């Protein structure tokens, strides 16, 4: 939504009061959630409360200097996003204004006020190839043609979801191939509806679908501990809570880089500017593991950093998920990362307190839980109206105050999401990364995804995973004893278990996001690395039974190579692991 594309304002009111991002106006005739322009500078805002003649507005820009008495104009349209080709490879603020464009228009590195720009370029032309012919019957969201949006993604031009009465179709009366701007008509329906590449959709409303289905395919992540122990499904939901510095952002960025999604929507919600810059700098350079093209070609970035207006922080998650749904409607698997949902919740809290609403737990508004679940409900594996299937997976970072998970945002999120990746400050301080606590984390998708892993990766995937879980459980118990008496007081077999657990942690669970190779580990490699640790375990216990002391077992030449498997490039990894396995067997057997 932007002023640039909505020149007509419908009603005018007058500012009555200003308090930070919240402004009240009188005599404004605008419905709830309508976009309005506030003051002489025309700052963008949204109606969030109406009481008698007084309309309350949250303003998406700084309000200092704005006075009562200044005008407010209504646009007659709810807060919406522009949907169409050009969203990929873009970076937006929380209300979908392209940041590169803003820089140019403001002629400054700093964000000025009252400047607007459309979410998608209105001048650019795109090569449209129809997939329907005159006379074909089409319904809502049916695809009428494609546009090569980026080197990776074909953009599908769809009939807007609210064009026709539900379930009805209409005949195409005209359709043309060629280069068009997003506002030019590319097809016409017998109803007189004209179809352009650009459509708009109100952000606070989910785009319609036929049906949500049970996800059965993993969203593989390139992260051993995630795929291996706590997998996420395509269409699934996950939360990553953790104290500051525990690795939420690194995890989100790793997923954005290596998850096997077609499209990634990455939302920096109330976080650091430099982190967004890192993404802006890196993503055009990095290859998409799916296609080999630049990662940016499948990515849409939304950056409303902590120092940008708080109302636009509140809206940025909606802007993001609406864009995600649009690509889902085209039949794509979309992954959305929101870093951090706590900042979104805090924006709600801030605005709610300006409205003097009755506060709920810890000052958050009573509707916090409802908003969170509405948002995560927009994730899922869907059958779309146009017959395609697509998914939106949502991964939300949570930043609990003091790292205490009992606070409202973490708790309300955990009630909704099905995957929980608990980050742990102890692990982070030990530089055990990713600092995901394997005892606390869970994935409720594990069982339903097993058939996929069995079929596509390895038949013994579930058994091998169970073995790892058992060893880690045993280790946790043993560590309690070690704390009291030291390791050397344990019997030899338990000492050996501790050693195996150490390899599991160092060679398998830990993964260095800064290493060019280790940062991405495909599922087959995840499985093979675990496999070689397990064969070390089996052979080592045979050796122990035959009377070989533990330090001789762990002292074999081959052992240090275990910790290096993650950094062996993919095309050499199988051979490396196979040779390592042979060496381990030979060396251990030679000890007895």
């Amino acid at each position, binding site marked *: 939504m932007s002023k640039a594309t909505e020149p007509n304002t419908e009603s005018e009111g007058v500012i*009555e*009061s200003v308090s930070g991002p919240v402004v009240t106006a009188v005599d404004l005739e605008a419905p709830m959630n309508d976009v309005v322009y506030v003051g002489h500078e025309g700052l963008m805002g949204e109606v969030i409360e109406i009481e008698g003649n007084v309309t309350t507005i949250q303003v998406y820009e700084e309000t200092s200097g*704005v006075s009562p008495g200044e005008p407010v104009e209504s646009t007659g349209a709810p807060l919406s996003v522009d949907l169409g080709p050009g969203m990929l490879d873009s*970076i937006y603020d929380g209300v979908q204004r392209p940041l590169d464009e803003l820089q140019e228009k403001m002629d400054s*590195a700093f964000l000025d006020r009252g400047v607007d720009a459309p979410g998608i370029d209105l001048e650019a032309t795109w090569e449209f190839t129809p997939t329907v012919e005159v006379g074909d019957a089409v319904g809502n969201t049916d695809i009428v043609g494609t546009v090569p949006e980026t080197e990776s993604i074909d953009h599908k031009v769809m009939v807007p979801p609210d064009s026709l009465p539900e379930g009805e179709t209409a005949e195409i009366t005209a359709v043309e191939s060629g280069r068009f701007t997003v506002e030019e008509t590319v097809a016409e329906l017998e109803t007189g509806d004209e179809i352009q590449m650009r459509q708009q959709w109100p952000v606070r409303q989910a785009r319609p679908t036929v049906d949500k289905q049970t996800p059965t395919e993993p969203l593989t992540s390139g992260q051993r501990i995630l795929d291996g122990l706590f997998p996420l499904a395509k269409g699934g939901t996950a939360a990553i809570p953790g104290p500051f510095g525990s690795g939420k952002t690194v995890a989100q960025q790793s997923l954005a880089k290596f998850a096997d999604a077609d499209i990634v929507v990455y939302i920096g919600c109330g976080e650091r500017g430099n982190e967004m810059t890192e993404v802006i700098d890196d993503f055009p350079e990095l290859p998409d593991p799916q296609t080999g093209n630049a990662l940016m070609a499948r990515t849409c970035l939304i*950056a409303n950093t902590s*120092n940008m207006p708080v109302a636009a922080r509140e809206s940025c998650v909606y802007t993001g998920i609406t864009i995600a749904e649009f690509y889902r409607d085209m039949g794509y698997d979309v992954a959305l990362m929101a870093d951090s949902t706590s900042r979104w919740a805090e924006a709600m809290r801030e605005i709610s307190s300006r409205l003097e609403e009755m506060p709920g737990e810890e000052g958050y508004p009573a509707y916090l839980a409802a908003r969170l679940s509405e948002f995560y409900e927009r994730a899922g594996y869907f059958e779309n109206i146009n017959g395609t299937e697509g998914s939106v997976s949502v991964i939300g970072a949570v930043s609990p105050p*003091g790292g205490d998970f009992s606070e409202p945002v973490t708790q309300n999120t955990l009630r909704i999401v099905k995957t929980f990746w608990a980050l742990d400050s102890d692990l982070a301080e*030990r530089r055990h990364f990713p600092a995901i606590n394997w005892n606390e984390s869970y994935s409720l998708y594990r069982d339903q995804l097993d058939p996929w892993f069995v079929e596509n990766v390895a038949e013994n995937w579930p058994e091998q995973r169970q073995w790892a879980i058992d060893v880690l459980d045993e280790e946790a118990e043993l560590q309690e004893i070690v704390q009291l008496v030291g390791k050397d007081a344990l019997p030899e077999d338990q000492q050996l278990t501790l050693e195996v657990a150490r390899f599991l942690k160092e060679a398998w669970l830990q993964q260095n996001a800064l290493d060019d190779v280790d940062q991405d580990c495909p599922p087959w490699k995840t499985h093979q690395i675990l496999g070689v640790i397990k064969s070390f375990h089996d052979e080592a216990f045979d050796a122990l039974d035959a009377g070989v002391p533990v330090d001789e077992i762990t002292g074999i030449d081959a052992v240090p190579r275990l910790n290096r498997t993650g950094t062996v490039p993919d095309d050499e990894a199988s051979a490396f692991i196979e040779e390592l396995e042979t060496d381990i067997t030979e060396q251990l057997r030679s000890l007895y």
Partner: protein
Amino acid sequence: MKEYKTITEISGPLVFVETDEPIGYDELVEIETPNGETRRGQVLDSSSDHVAIQTFEGTSGIDRNSSVRFLGETMKMPVTEDLLGRVLDGSGDPIDDGPEIVPEERRDIVGAAINPYAREYPEEFIQTGISAIDGMNTLVRGQKLPIFSGSGLPHNDIALQIARQATVPEESDDGDEDSEFAVIFGAMGITAEEANEFMDDFERTGALERSVVFMNLADDPAVERTVTPRLALTTAEYLAFDKGYQVLVILTDMTNYCEALREIGAAREEVPGRRGYPGYMYTDLASLYERAGRIKGLKGSVTQIPILTMPSDDITHPIPDLTGYITEGQIMVDRDLNSQGIQPPVDVLPSLSRLMDDGIGEGLTRADHGDVADQLFAAYAEGEDLRDLVNIVGREALSDRDNRFLDFADRFEETFIQQGYGTDRDIEDTLSAGWELLSMLPTEELNRVDEEFIEQYYHEDGERVEATADD
């Protein structure tokens, strides 16, 4: 300019006034007390017929007959390069008897946000001359790296040492005048004694020449503390992005700043967030800390070292907690190390510079830097872990290997962390101090260091040369 004598209510730092014309949000206000004093303030809430004003200097002496003038603009900082070498109070007025400041420009102190698209990613090393920082928690230009301390700990000495020693290595190499260093010092609620220490040190070492000092003292008005860092950062942005300086901003003590926020929140009868601090404290702190950075195409940079004292040494307290959620790492000052006499008492284990990795290595510091830091960290962590166990089972019960790591941890604190506030170690010195320590361990234990570096720098049981330390 219209004068109002329509004050309806005075409460804590707030004054409520009836008005008959629209007043802008955030607008600056002057209140004249009956005995002729002028107080300044800012509009917090504005509606068509009344406003709430937050006074900077407190409300004592203001009564209902005081006259109120709205200045029609938001608060500005007069900026010029001539500010270098000057000492100002917490509201930006000179207190050093120097010449009048002729501003080149007056800038809004609520800085606009840097467009994330315009930022340049920070990756240029700043040498502080402190091994615990340079070696293991490297600071880079444009970073915000706070010092988390506790009351009674020597964070001020560390801050001063950094202010004195900080250099951009290039500066010395090619004498590039464009990467001149400037220090902006923003003090909030520090004691007169601390202020004197700072000023003496600044003057004695000549650091003042390249500094601008803003002083809000403990007995200055608390509300003024919410303005001081903004004045400091506005000056910093001007020097960095208009004049090309590498600016280091030291803000101390952020805890006092947050207390002031809490006070205003309470006076406004806001719904408090955690432990009585305002619900918007994260956003407010971010509006300061995010003013660190670099901008594409511009020479200068704003680097921030905010200092805060953690109430009861509790890192989960909202002040350090919200700070840690915004900044790019933290330097932890440790009470135990301090009582052992280690100077500076920095605990590297919970410390972290998140931007370190991109700022070190070949061409930036030295090729082995990353490996050395990792290995020192791992070995010290292992030794530190064993200390707990040793208390239970005694040293004799531990293996030779374990004893070696225990020794390592002691030596690490005594020679690497310990250096004294007067010693400036360049990065070469720091890395050699690191290799001295690593050479205490057998090469098989150096699993985080590349073979090539071991060959180059490891010395077999070499003489244990002490790293430079001034005591």
